[in-house]
């Protein structure tokens, strides 16, 4: 098979995934708009509460401007067309365009999520390899017990405990936020940002590393039970050589794929972690938006988080198709 046709196939797959992603995003926009419209909370009342007392005339003016009196289908299409022109509306809570808030806060969230993602990937994969290579020995038993235990522990509680021990009692880390309090954002150094990231990202990474560790363990056991390992052993390859030549190479890509497919849990976890550590990211914004009935921001972040998850799933699917020759054969 030539390189050109290989690339063409990947492009075709990417195109199919693109179409699927757009259809999913469209559906999410319909569902979330319907859910928000069904809410008993009156957005006009919320808006007025934010700006102070208004007369009856002003109120009806606002209603007319927002189109509250129009049927919800019409309102949906108005919203959608504004959305496609890049206008996500104005946040009631922050009094600024939603798109601005999302892009600003996503940078913070992305830093947090990527740190946790890389960290949980490396730790989880290494622990999975240790367990898989030492199946049923004490290392395996201890680590897998730990993994099962961690999946029963609510992450936000663990975050609270870390905050208490390491920030309040020992004073090693700051209590919250992404930058030191009372400093202009231009003065904050990258080290200060990283310093504020340590606890939240560690908490967030604890949430997802057990699944990757257990998955890698299973994969490693499968590889170690295979016939080519038996043959390699018969040739006299040592444990390290076995691990490096066969175990590592066969397990690392599935693990990376799984990591990409876990963006939804990552984002969900970041909502909790950001609330515990008062971290100014998308997660703390979405819960604040829901509590304060900030509809435009809530809708905007819902769509954006779906896009984020879909991109992760798409990368996972593409990676999966590229690395697994068995799936490649079927697709041909």
């Amino acid at each position, binding site marked *: 098979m030539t390189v050109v046709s290989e690339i063409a196939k990947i492009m075709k797959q990417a195109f199919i995934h693109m179409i699927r992603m757009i259809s999913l995003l469209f559906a999410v926009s319909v569902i979330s708009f319907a859910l928000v419209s069904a809410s008993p909370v009156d957005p006009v009342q919320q808006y007025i509460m934010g700006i102070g007392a208004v007369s009856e005339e002003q109120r009806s003016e606002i209603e007319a401007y927002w189109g509250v009196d129009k049927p919800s289908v019409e309102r949906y299409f108005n919203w959608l067309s504004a959305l496609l022109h890049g206008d996500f509306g104005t946040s009631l809570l922050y009094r600024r365009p939603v798109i601005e808030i999302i892009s600003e806060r996503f940078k913070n969230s992305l830093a947090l999520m990527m740190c946790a993602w890389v960290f949980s990937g490396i730790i989880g994969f290494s622990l999975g390899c240790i367990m898989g290579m030492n199946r049923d020995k004490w290392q395996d038993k201890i680590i897998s017990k730990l993994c099962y235990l961690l999946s029963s522990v609510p992450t936000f509680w663990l975050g609270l405990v870390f905050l208490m021990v390491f920030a309040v009692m020992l004073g090693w880390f700051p209590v919250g936020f992404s930058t030191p309090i009372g400093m202009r954002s231009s003065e904050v150094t990258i080290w200060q940002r990283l310093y504020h990231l340590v606890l939240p990202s560690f908490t967030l990474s604890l949430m997802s590393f057990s699944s990757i560790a257990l998955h890698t363990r299973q994969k490693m056991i499968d590889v170690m039970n295979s016939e080519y390992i038996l043959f390699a052993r018969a040739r006299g390859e040592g444990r390290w050589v076995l691990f490096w030549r066969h175990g590592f190479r066969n397990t690392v890509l599935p693990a990376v794929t799984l990591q990409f497919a876990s963006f939804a849990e990552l984002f969900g976890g970041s*909502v909790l972690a950001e609330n515990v550590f008062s971290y100014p990211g998308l997660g703390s914004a979405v819960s604040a938006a829901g509590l304060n009935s900030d509809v435009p921001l809530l809708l905007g972040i*819902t769509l954006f988080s779906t896009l984020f*998850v879909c991109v992760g799933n798409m990368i996972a699917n593409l990676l999966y198709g590229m690395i697994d020759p068995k799936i490649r054969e079927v697709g041909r």
Partner: protein
Amino acid sequence: MNLAGHKKSFHKKGFNQRTKAVILSVILAILMLVIYAFGFLISEKAVGTDVLNAKRPPSWAHPFGTDNLGRDLLMRTLKGLSVSMTVGFVASCISAVIAVLIGIAAAMGSKLMDGIINWVIDLMMGIPHTVFIILISFSLGRGLKGLLVGIAATHWTSLARLIRGEVLQLRGQHYIAVSRRLGKSSGWILGHHLLPHLAPQFMVGLILMFPHAILHEASISFLGYGLPPEQPAIGIILAESMRYLSSGMWWMAVFPGLLLVLIVLLIDRLGENLRTVIDPYSAQE
């Protein structure tokens, strides 16, 4: 394995794997019921405010300490746990029923139906669950109803996929084909062949969903959705404890969380044991 060795290990342990699992399940279930009933029966007075005894660290009178309003935290936590368990149980039951119905519909229906259902499952997995529950809760005006619907609506996907796979596999079996040739209707086959076969999967799926649902309930209440703030729910207690962390009231966060972890571990254990009992595949292990 030879028979003699098997016999020996059998005698050494006293019980076989399955009997042990049954005994353990019964003990765990009784323990859970006691905790649940205890939380349920605690009077309003026991969790009432007592400003004179506010912010007390753990002592014999108050093993978990008291909160900022002087409420006994052990009583509050137990009461909150019974609320969480109710919400988790109801939500996972609804979710498991949805999963079975959708799984069967996907596998038995047309190819188009299967495609649509798979797309819906992809959709559900595309929105982060926490965000989706926030949306649903917002839509239903917060409170218990939003919490229940939100958790029930987000937890069915993986079990539905499992059931779909199972039904697809069953459909190819010879005895189903024979049954069809003998003129039995689809409904008869569903009732007599498929559902009995799916019952263990359903039970196991339901039990394994239960701890997840409880954890989700706690985290959503923690964010301020779900139950109203005067309700004693674990998530609400933990959210309140955040305000007093820097003043050194460590017991407000540590003990309620520990008890929650303990309950989740208990349910998890119960689920694993019941799986050994119910699941025909692991019965012989």
